[in-house]
């Protein structure tokens, strides 16, 4: 168990770097508490797997350092770092039985037979593998195999951190729920630091106490699921989290006020600096209401998802999505809308203005 600190971590797969896009990771700083459940969330290619492999020691960072409990581990290999990692698809040793698979990491670390036996049986029970312990691992289903991968990580009592790299990708949808709640349950039971990498926001938000959102090799926001939803610090977070994502609309700033579609819009955040090359207004579809006056929009399409209605509208600055209760009367053709001030934010060059 350990606290994890990442300092100014940068990594590039190229030997020479000239521009920003040559870097897979750019100046990542993280402080993770001991025993926390964290998620790294971002689209494919944002650098989350790179970051994970650097924490586990499979990859050496180009720059920066990694500390476990304030002790530098940057130069150590995975075994010395004492970590566990579970991969996207199940990694099992085909010729071994389930028992031998679980015992393998312990055997390599020179534990005695009786210690191994009690540990393997305990983990087997926890993961509901007891009945298959003596079967060949190759004969199991995908979720059974992934449980073995997980078990090989859990079986060692000394691991500093357990990392998951999109571990549910190959699991059937109905089993995803089962395994996910199993993970959550295990976290509460063994109380170890866990890092979960995914591009699926639901997986991240249900698993983690704190979600780290990554975009183009940088951390754009760290926060609880509620914070990410209610106050996105970057337009990417607003867009990526939520379904549909946040409306990001171009706006102008004059005399310290937001001017959108010729109207003054009150916002949550105030600002002093105004010299941005791009200013945008962000409002989640959930916080837009129909009203008698306000911004005039044309209704383009209404889709009923069963739980709520998604309304596609258009004004001269672009399209705006609105989320409404299924019982809400939708005006036909054109309507006026207002934004809830508490959830309206101004973004300068994609970052929230504060």
């Amino acid at each position, binding site marked *: 168990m350990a606290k994890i600190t990442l300092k100014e971590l940068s990594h590039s797969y190229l030997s020479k770097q000239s521009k920003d896009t040559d870097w897979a990771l750019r100046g990542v700083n993280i402080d993770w508490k001991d025993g926390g459940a964290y998620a790294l969330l971002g689209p494919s290619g944002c650098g989350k797997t790179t970051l994970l*492999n650097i924490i*586990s020691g*499979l990859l050496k960072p180009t720059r920066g350092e990694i500390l476990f409990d304030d002790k530098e581990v940057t130069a150590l*290999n*995975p*075994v010395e770092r004492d*970590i*566990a*990692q579970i*991969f*996207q*698809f199940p*990694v099992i*040793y*085909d*010729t*071994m039985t389930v028992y031998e698979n679980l015992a*393998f*990491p312990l055997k*390599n*670390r020179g534990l005695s037979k009786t210690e191994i036996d009690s540990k393997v049986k305990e983990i087997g029970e926890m993961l509901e593998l007891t009945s298959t312990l003596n079967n*060949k691992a*190759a*004969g199991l289903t995908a979720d059974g195999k992934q449980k073995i*991968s997980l078990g*090989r990580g859990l079986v060692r009592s000394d691991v500093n951190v357990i990392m998951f790299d999109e571990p549910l990708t190959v699991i059937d949808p109905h089993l995803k729920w089962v395994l996910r709640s199993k993970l959550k349950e295990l976290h509460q039971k063994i109380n170890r630091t866990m890092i979960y990498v995914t591009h699926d926001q639901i997986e991240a938000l249900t698993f983690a106490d704190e979600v780290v959102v990554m975009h183009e090799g940088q951390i754009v926001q760290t926060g609880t699921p509620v914070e990410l939803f209610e106050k996105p610090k970057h337009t990417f977070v607003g867009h990526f989290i939520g379904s549909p994502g946040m409306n990001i609309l171009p706006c102008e700033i004059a005399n310290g006020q937001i001017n959108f579609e010729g109207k003054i819009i009150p916002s949550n955040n105030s600002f002093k600096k105004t010299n941005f090359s791009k200013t945008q207004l962000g409002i989640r579809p959930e916080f837009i209401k129909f009203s008698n006056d306000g911004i005039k929009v044309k209704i383009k399409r209404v889709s009923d998802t069963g739980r709520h209605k998604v309304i596609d509208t258009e004004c001269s600055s672009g399209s705006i999505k609105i989320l409404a209760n299924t019982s809400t009367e939708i005006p036909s053709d054109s309507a006026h809308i207002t934004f809830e001030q508490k959830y309206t934010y101004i973004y300068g060059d994609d970052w929230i203005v504060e």
Partner: protein
Amino acid sequence: MNKTYNQKAWFFVVPVFVLVAFNAVVPLMTVVNYSFQETFGSNVFAWEGTRWFKQILHSERFHASLGRQFIFTFIILLIQLPLGIAIALTMPKKGWGVPVCLILMSMPLLIPWNVVGAMWNIFALPDIGFLGNSLNSLGFDYNFTQQSGDAWFTTILMDVWHWTSLVVLLSYAGLNSIQPAYYQAAEIDGASRWDIFRYIELPKMKKVLTLAILLRFMDSFMIYTEPFVLTGGGPGNATNFLSLDLVKMALGQFDLGPAAAMSLIYFLIVLLICWVFYSLMMKNEGRT
């Protein structure tokens, strides 16, 4: 239920039947025909029953060449498999080294068999050949045309040179299909290099290695051209392998009946060993 029956479709398969008949069934049946009869030419045949089969199965000569054949195949499998796997393991996985290695490895496979035999014959000549001359000037008494041990050594070396590449290429393909996550997981689990080979690489190569063993077994068990050109089966009968012996019997002595019986026995041995081996290797595959 009114199911329409249309047997005309069978006509489309006729060309295949004709082709297979002419390239497999008819020649094989001719051999079967010869193996039960005695002929003195001009299409005159006399029924002999199983006489030729009994004769072959009790013949010292057949036992000797079969024994030589098994020893030869066993030795080359014992050398080529570990060597091929070892070379594949040391080959680079990316960069300019990959095409270079692949081309180097493919080259021996592309050389016609009789050319390989001729090359090695000249290469190993004790007086002017590079190998033979070098060995002799190093103080070894080497002469593959006179000493049976040297003849075996040269034949085996030639076959290793010619065919190890096949095992290398198959193993390399097998190794390359292993996902990097397996190596990463093994690293995290604290596995040694030997563990990685034993528990990840070898099991993942099982199918290609099965194929490699089958191919190398069949090819080496039926080897003809290379030893024919290199040693001609000599000195004496030292490297007289099954197929060399068979050709000598059929075309040298014109003993068509016993030769036909021997071909059939030969064919059945190859078939039987391949079948047993393949069934054993694939026994547990169906369950995954």
